[in-house]
């Protein structure tokens, strides 16, 4: 097995572990449980994108992960401000 394929396996395993957070997002009794599950899946997606970018040997794929990490917290921010009481 070449060394770069290890990163593909790592990224795919991060995707598979996402199922555990998904169970909490679907079953979670309160809204903050679902928000924390959404944030965990965001972090796992960013880590998976970086690992897969290393596996594909493309530098431009890391930029996608950077843009995604900048933009992904906006949803969590809006939901948190809605739960607090004012947007």
């Amino acid at each position, binding site marked *: 097995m070449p060394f770069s394929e290890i990163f593909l396996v790592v*990224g795919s395993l991060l995707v598979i572990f996402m199922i555990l957070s998904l169970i909490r997002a679907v079953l979670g009794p309160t809204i903050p449980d679902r928000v924390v599950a959404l944030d965990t899946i965001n972090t796992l997606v960013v880590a998976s994108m970086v690992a897969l970018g290393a596996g594909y040997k493309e530098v431009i794929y890391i930029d*996608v992960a950077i843009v*995604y990490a900048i933009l992904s917290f906006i949803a969590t921010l809006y939901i948190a401000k809605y739960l607090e009481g004012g947007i």
Partner: protein
Amino acid sequence: MITIPELGQITILIVIICTAYAAIKFKDLLAAVISLAIMSLLLSLEFYILQAPDVAIAEAAIGAGLTTAIYIIAIRGTMRREEE
């Protein structure tokens, strides 16, 4: 013999279908919006794996950021519980 990257891609597709179904079925509209956000970001990851990073950037910007914010503003303007 199925390899681990193929298993990861199958997992992404199954989770996309599950979250889309949950977004339809939830009566609490805030939970439905969160489920739709999860579906959108996993769709972005699927575009990424299919070697289309520009589409993935657009999907991440519009789907994960803008759509959720607009839905939250709409829920705040109307009501949170869906009525039968």
